[in-house]
């Protein structure tokens, strides 16, 4: 599963309900790495991706049991600042990001390839703010690293998921991106072809269960199993 | 006993030596840089001549014409190198025994005898770097003897030895020569060593054979 889901999924796997699904093994890494591993024949039964792109990529290659695919969770993109910071912003096309940044850059997950960065870039572009920061951002390896830069006060602003922001007391959510400013942030899950279908189904059922949804919610995700 | 025709031509030097000798005990004699060590190393199989033939005791060791070059390890020659070459990572005892590995026992040359005759008894547990010049020299001689060689190649073996030690080792080598008839190729600058150990002498100069003469004649010319 995508690394950003680790705390929540670890908890779900430890739920009493998970005992029915014996022998669960989890592997967390970047979605890209996981997708490539599956493509190369890794013996996995279920894939939970941090974005649609990699799930689609696998599906096009025939690795995904399409019927089992569903959206496990949703997330929101927010702008955070270091906790002591006093910036006030609302995100619209008039926002003065440069003024808020001063001479420091804004932290984003790598906007070309890391999901959180791709969403952030899309949102800034939609809002017409991208030109302001085009040369003023620092790209990080994943969204947690962007969060860390804000938490340590290195970057005055960072674009991260709400699920990350709520768990970090050293940052303050300054503003939420309008939901329509970027593609929906979803975590699709699906069983994979050619593997132990029954076990995969049991695990997917577990992910859909009410206790699992509660866990996801507690970690700042919006559970979306009902979709 | 030895038949040799060697050409070796690195930059700045030209070695072209050819001789044959029936003598079991031969010495190479000549000024510094005339090619003695090069020749000895060629016989040992450690310096490959550009061309030529080397035959020792009836066995052909090297022949560039037919591409033959017996590996040094299979020539069975005990070499005392001019520059010592003890194994620094082995104690004296292990240096002495290095050449015995995998070889049949030789009653004529046992460790105890050699060690005693070369005065190495107290040095067996020492590391080579702690040896004095003369001590290291004696260990090198012992190592060559104990490798059960079919012949000895001695490159200035007695250098750095003091009077008594020198005459003692010389007497020992002479005894070996007489008792077990170990063929010897000796390089030395000391005429008395040549006279004590060799039957025939090849005089070299600047990479060429100057003369080849019996040891009696060699001694006579010296005086």
């Amino acid at each position, binding site marked *: 599963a995508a690394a950003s889901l680790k705390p929540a999924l670890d908890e779900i796997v430890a739920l009493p309900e998970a005992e029915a699904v014996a022998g669960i*093994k989890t592997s*967390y890494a970047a979605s890209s790495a996981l997708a490539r591993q599956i493509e190369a024949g*890794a*013996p996995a039964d279920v894939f939970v991706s941090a974005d649609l792109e990699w799930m689609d990529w696998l599906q096009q290659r025939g690795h995904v049991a399409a019927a089992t695919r569903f959206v496990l969770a949703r997330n929101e993109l927010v702008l955070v600042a270091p906790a002591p910071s006093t910036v006030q912003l609302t995100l619209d096309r008039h926002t003065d990001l440069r003024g808020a940044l001063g001479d420091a850059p804004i932290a984003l997950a790598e906007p070309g390839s890391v999901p959180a960065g791709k969403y952030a870039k899309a949102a800034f572009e939609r809002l017409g703010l991208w030109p302001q920061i085009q040369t003023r951002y620092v790209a990080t390896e994943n969204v947690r690293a962007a969060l860390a830069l804000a938490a340590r006060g290195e970057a005055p602003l960072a674009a991260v998921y709400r699920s990350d922001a709520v768990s*970090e007391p050293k940052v303050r959510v300054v503003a939420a991106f309008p939901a329509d400013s970027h593609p929906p942030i979803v975590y699709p899950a699906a069983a994979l072809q050619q593997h132990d279908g029954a076990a995969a189904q049991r695990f997917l059922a577990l992910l859909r269960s009410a206790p699992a949804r509660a866990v996801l919610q507690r970690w700042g995700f919006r559970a979306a199993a009902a979709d | 006993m030895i038949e040799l025709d060697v050409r070796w031509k690195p930059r700045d030097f030209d070695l072209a030596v050819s001789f044959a000798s029936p003598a079991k005990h031969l010495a190479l004699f000549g000024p510094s840089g005339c090619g003695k060590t090069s020749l000895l190393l060629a016989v040992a199989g450690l310096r490959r001549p550009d061309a030529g033939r080397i035959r020792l005791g009836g066995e052909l060791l090297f022949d560039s014409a037919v591409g033959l070059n017996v590996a040094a390890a299979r020539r069975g020659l005990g070499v005392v190198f001019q520059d010592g*070459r003890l194994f620094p990572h082995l104690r004296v005892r292990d240096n002495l025994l*290095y050449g015995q590995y995998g070889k049949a026992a030789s009653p004529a040359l046992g460790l105890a005898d050699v060690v005693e005759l070369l005065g190495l008894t107290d040095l067996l547990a020492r590391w080579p770097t702690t040896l004095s010049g003369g001590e290291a020299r004696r260990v090198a001689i012992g*190592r060559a003897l104990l*490798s059960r060689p079919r012949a000895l190649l001695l490159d200035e073996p007695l250098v750095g030895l003091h009077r008594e030690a020198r005459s003692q080792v010389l007497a020992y080598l002479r005894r070996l020569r007489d008792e077990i008839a170990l063929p010897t190729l000796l390089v030395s600058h000391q005429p008395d060593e040549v006279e004590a150990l060799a039957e025939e002498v090849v005089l070299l100069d600047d990479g060429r054979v100057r003369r080849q003469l019996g040891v009696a004649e060699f001694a006579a010319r010296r005086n």
Partner: protein
Amino acid sequence: MLTAAEATALAISLKVALLSILVALPFALALGLALSRLRFPGKSVLEALLNLPLVLPPVVTGYALLQLFGRHGTIGAWLAPLGLQFAFHWSGAVLAALVMSFPLLVISVRAGFDGVDRRLEAAAESLGAGAWRRFASVTLPLSLRSVLAGCVLAFARAFGEFGATISFVGSIPGETRTLSIAIWELLNQPGGEAGLGRLVWVALLVGIAASLLAALLARRSPGAEAAHD
């Protein structure tokens, strides 16, 4: 103290690092010797290829391993019918660690062999030692310090390997989740920094142990030290 999961990760890391060195060492010695003693066409290209895992970001190496040793990989497809499978298996972590640390081992070993006095090898030859014995009894002991230095570097690198491992075999607890991956996961987790210090200490201790062991082994042959007055 470590949690059970952390202890498992440490055990996997140690197993992976030690095994990768054990497997790599014979090849590194052979290759180091060849690079030191032979001249052959394409030698610099070979050296550069060796260094490739250093020059590239580890993810790329992991990806390349996936292409080669995945189930459908060029080599993996051949091995699969034999029951040999690296993907998602701890042996894949060994392979990744091996590839990443191999250049360190080879280059150190080679520098050691370069420094050995060839006249001593010639002396051994004159005493009847064939190529094998010469190598084992002269060349190797005389380059012991460089070989050990290479082992320490390679062990440390293998122990700390992260990027290629997670790209190649992912992070499966009890199987491929090494200490490095555990540390990385902590760092990517809310509040994880708290547990970080402890794991960094563990890594430091492993590093100290490796250095000490190498120093101890080097000291076993005082004669092989550089000569001095």
